């Protein structure tokens, strides 16, 4: 694809995936500076929220937050605030404290704690305490968090903010399929089939909104590992068995990213939560049935 002079497109490996930033309709120097700064903000999130990096906020919390409050980056605090709100609104289905179960299932590295915590209901004592001064404390030694289900969406939102602060009129940030765009031109996005990566399920137009998808992780170098499912239903401690893939459109990528996990687990029962966040969804069931909410189609298509 030839690159027009008023467009710039760059990609870097971050957040365990490929992050692409595309901008248009500004002078080259402004676009180059905006893209550099946007990648810097994603790099900051990567350093704060990686489960694998022992120096990250997440790793420091998992080591020390049960013994006493740990101060974190304001962005880590903000993500945890939203994560806890989503935990309550989803009746515990979106749970960042699921890390020990993911470790037990071999989906995350690290020692398996002696006694994985019992499944928690929404009425249970809050296991993660948010304290003044961006400090976090865990109530229990068995609590460990993983922000893998929400950090990519947050990173997309922050990077988009940076592009807009630089005065770029058109921008797109795509973190391995979790994406958001602003500007007058709609962005075409093709949704990949969850278990047939060479097939597309549909095309959507994204303008000033976010879209995120879930369906496990995809390794195109050794495609035999496609099936690896990184989502666990906290109630059964097993991967969801009815839904193969889910995509969510919302105003923020953080919300879209998190809601895909709930839709994967809850299927069509996620309608009320989607409504609350003014989000719409597409789900692909294990049997291949494809369903969307009315909002997904949009008013124009319904009239046609």
């Amino acid at each position, binding site marked *: 694809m030839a*690159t027009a002079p008023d467009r710039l497109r760059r990609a870097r490996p971050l957040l365990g995936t490929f992050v692409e930033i595309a901008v248009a309709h500004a002078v080259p120097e402004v676009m180059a500076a905006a893209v550099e700064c946007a990648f810097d903000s994603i790099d900051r999130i990567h350093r704060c929220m990686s489960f694998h990096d022992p120096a990250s906020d997440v790793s420091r919390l998992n080591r020390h937050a049960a013994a006493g409050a740990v101060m974190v980056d304001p962005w880590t605090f903000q993500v945890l605030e939203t994560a806890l709100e989503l935990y309550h609104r989803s009746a515990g289905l979106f749970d960042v404290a699921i890390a020990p179960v993911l470790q037990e299932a071999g989906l995350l590295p690290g020692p398996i704690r002696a006694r994985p915590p019992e499944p928690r209901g929404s009425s249970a004592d809050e296991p993660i305490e948010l304290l003044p001064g961006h400090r976090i404390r865990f109530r229990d030694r068995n609590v460990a968090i993983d922000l893998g289900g929400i950090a990519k969406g947050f990173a997309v939102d922050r990077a988009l903010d940076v592009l807009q602060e630089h005065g770029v009129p058109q921008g797109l940030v795509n973190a391995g399929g979790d994406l958001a765009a602003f500007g007058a031109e709609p962005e*075409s996005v093709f949704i*990949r089939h969850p278990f047939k990566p060479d097939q597309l399920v549909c095309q959507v137009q994204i303008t000033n909104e976010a879209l995120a998808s879930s369906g496990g992780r995809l390794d195109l170098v050794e495609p035999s590992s496609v099936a690896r499912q990184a989502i666990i239903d906290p109630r059964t401690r097993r991967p969801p068995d009815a839904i193969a893939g889910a995509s969510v459109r919302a105003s923020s990528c953080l919300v879209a990213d998190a809601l895909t996990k709930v839709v994967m687990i809850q299927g069509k029962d996620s309608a009320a939560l989607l409504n609350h966040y003014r989000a719409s969804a597409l789900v692909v069931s294990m049997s291949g049935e494809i369903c969307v909410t009315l909002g997904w189609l949009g008013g124009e298509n319904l009239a046609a």
Partner: protein
Amino acid sequence: MTTWIRLATPAALVSTVAAPAYAVQYLSIAQAQKQAFPSATAFAQLDARSWKAQSGGTVLGLIVVDHVIGKHLYIDYTVALDPSGRIKRVDILQYRESYGGEVRDASWLAQFVGKSSASALKVEQDIRNISGATLSSHHVTEGVKRIVAAYGNRAR
């Protein structure tokens, strides 16, 4: 009240659009060199895939080009190291996914996509963004580690 609309049953999936080829050229090697070391006045080739960035007599660091080739994925990328051998930045130069086919049935999309899909899908022009299962960058990350190990002490 949110209602759900069924778009396709398993039988209908037979006609799903198949086999996109998704390719993007982000940067040339020369552009990546310049972006990693903007103040460099020369790039002296060290071996077949690495260059020392220099400004006058000062070595600013090293840039190494590498690639990942998989069953469906081809990626060229560069790793820039500072003189102490630490990673300065990693850039993707070229990304290509290939399944070796053509889009078979664009009209199936038109059932529910609306206006934009009226024209036939032009592979590599229209497919700019794909959402779906998260793409793993594991193999690039492993490659970056190998480059740091091999070139870390040669960046001075």
